[in-house]
């Protein structure tokens, strides 16, 4: 699957002017990687996970017809395009919009003393790899490493420059069985599993996650297979098991039962028994 959101002409532009479709910004995040991080959520996703807790990030934004931040003349007045955010001299954190790498960097510089790095998530951030590359390189110039939070729908091996520019990847394994994965997310997991192996081989796995949703897929099989794979590859990063939570989930899946504490603990033991070195319930 090729990344879709790149216009060929973007590759010729100043990297700082590359535009990204942004869903939201959390300037201080404690749940998107180690330490305090600037977390950027990109808009647009190819998966349609039933239990998605931020389904508003799926919709892709139509590309703006004008340059970001443009002002046009309307009669005797100057009008700022309403799709463009206002001046980013203060932190604006929500409402999907387009922004350039430079505009995001302005916000990162504001909080730079307080953060350990940045995390680019979504939606699916790898649908905008050029934006991610430019932002990662800019952040690194400030001494801030980048983690990517991805569902793995885009082949990592096709993005060598980006993979070199980042510090690690937090990867979701939604389900191990391909048919279950398709039922759960709308797409097969073939690329996801290929990515898991590639990231393991290239020592880029920061964290592997599975959301446990009883009745929606075989959690025991997914956990066992994923844990065994990580053990076989001698991956040391944590395998994080996340209990399903209905907050933000669309109907009718918001009525699904969360897993019991006992089930989560059973799965944790299962993963450890399969040889996984570090298993966390979050």
């Amino acid at each position, binding site marked *: 699957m090729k990344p879709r959101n790149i216009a060929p002409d973007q590759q010729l532009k100043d990297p700082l002017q590359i535009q990204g479709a942004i869903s939201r910004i*959390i300037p201080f995040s404690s749940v998107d990687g180690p330490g305090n991080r600037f977390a950027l959520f990109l808009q647009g996703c190819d998966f349609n996970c039933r239990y998605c807790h931020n389904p508003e990030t799926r919709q892709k934004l139509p590309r703006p017809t004008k340059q970001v931040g443009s002002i046009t003349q309307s009669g005797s007045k100057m009008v700022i395009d309403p799709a463009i955010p206002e001046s980013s001299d203060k932190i604006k*954190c929500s409402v999907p919009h387009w922004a350039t790498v430079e505009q995001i960097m302005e916000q990162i510089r504001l909080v730079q003393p307080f953060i350990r790095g940045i995390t680019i998530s979504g939606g699916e951030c790898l649908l905008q790899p050029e934006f991610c590359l430019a932002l990662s390189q800019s952040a690194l110039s400030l001494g801030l490493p980048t983690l990517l939070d991805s569902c793995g729908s885009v082949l990592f091996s096709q993005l060598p420059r980006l993979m070199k520019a980042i510090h690690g990847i937090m990867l979701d394994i939604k389900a191990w069985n391909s048919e279950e994965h398709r039922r759960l997310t709308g797409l097969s997991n073939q690329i996801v599993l290929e990515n898991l192996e590639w990231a393991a081989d290239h020592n880029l796995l920061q964290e592997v996650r599975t959301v446990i949703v009883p009745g929606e897929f075989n959690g025991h099989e997914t956990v066992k297979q994923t844990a065994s794979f990580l053990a076989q590859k001698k991956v040391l990063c944590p395998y994080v098991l996340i209990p399903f939570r209905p907050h933000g989930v669309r109907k009718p899946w918001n009525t699904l039962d969360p897993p019991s504490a006992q089930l989560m603990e059973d799965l944790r033991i299962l993963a450890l028994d399969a040889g996984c070195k570090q298993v966390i319930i979050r």
Partner: protein
Amino acid sequence: MIKNQRLRTANPAETIIRDSQLTYQQKLHGLARVAEETVEVLEIPPQIQEFRDQGIICDLFEGSAPYRPRYIAPDFHRALRQGSDFLGLAPPSDIWEATAFLQILYKHVPSITTFPVFLGNLDTLLEPFVQQSLQETGNQKEAEKAIGLFLQHIDRTLNDSFCHANLGPESTTAGELILKVTAEQKNAVPNLTLLYDPQITSDNFASLAAQVGLETAKPSFANHQMFSKEFDSMSAHGYVIASCYNGLPLGGGSYTLVRLNLKKLADQYSNLEDFLQDLPSVVKHQLKYMDERVRFLVEESQFFQTSFLVKEGLISQDQFTGMFGIVGLAEAVNQLNPTKGLFGSDPTADQLGMDIISRISEQVKHHKASHVTIGDRAYLLHAQVGIDLDQGVSPGCRVPIGQEPPLPLHLIQSAPFHQFFPSGIGDVFAFESTMKHNPGALVDIIKGAFAQGLRYLSAYSADSDVVRITGYLVKRSEIDKLNRGEPSLLDTTVLGKNAVNNLRVLDRKLRETSETSVSSKVMEP
């Protein structure tokens, strides 16, 4: 910060005696204060008295006859080294003797609260004995038990939230055990601060402290580099964090704390120019009042002539200072700012606040106090943390609760004020509980905040029973007891209850640091 409202009513002694929500000890202390109020020995000119009656100058119920310094910070290291003749104690030789020694000594350290406001750098005091115990027993059990009983003893007998112990900056086994026990016991006493220096304190120890802080609202974090440099330049022997978050000279303390209520002063004016014109005169009157209080204490009360703490070298008068407090800056600015911008979110308002503090700071710096030797003989500015009776008056230079900007902007806004307050200023932040899983995130925030010049930072998790009120700790479960008409062991619980009602401290903005909590909000500056 003492509940003294009853002293102003008819027959205050009888009111105290009949109060069913006071323990015997609390009644005893209350009756002592009533007795003190019958003694009039200070010479207070009419203008100063008028400011006091208006609440513009306030001595925080320090008493009409100062007979002991308000805050005392003994050199406990020296005490452990030499023992105490007055108390008949030899230098301790193991962890049990060391903790018993301190428990005894604490009972003989006076203060405004009648309890010691500084308990020592507990980890460095106990580390040699902890190491000795580890060597002799081969494990930590004995040391952990001794420390557990020690901290429990403090909570149950020095039952006042202004008793304050320090840790750090070095990482020690004793420090780790103190934090471990603190997390288990979840007591409001003692108040606790880690003297934090990222270049000295290990990241692991800082993360552990942050983790415990999110569980129990302590320790807070003090900017060790900032405090050390300032107190060294004052020719102090070191510094301690005492009471709420007061920076004081080690082996000394503060004679007095008097505060200027900028909100009440601003109430007297309809425009900024007149306020600024009269401000120097009000500051001068407060300085004069402080001088008079100090004069009586030093020259007539005989404290420094008779106290065994002085005779045994645990404190020295030349290491004492005075604290010039301010409170209600935000409200004063918001009332007088010609642009009507709000303090905390408008640059003109913040600049006005900076202007007011700078003027006060300069004037206090140039006032030579007769009985102060260190710090070029000047009193130290203090951002007073409020009293339970305050309504509509924000502590120190804090942004009012309900008007707080997003956390990054809040830290950037607050930091520049901290340089003016060597005797204490601090900000308090409530975080959602998800941060407990990643305490390193809090350490990152603190590192950045200190690099910006923030002096002191407190954090707690929104779901913890122990909460930070303004600068001291109280348990929500203890407040519930008072609400049911039952007495609380901690005499500061009632302060916390009143502060919850009057200052809405539990409505402090929750600092959200996860996607699920901000998914439907626009975070406006």
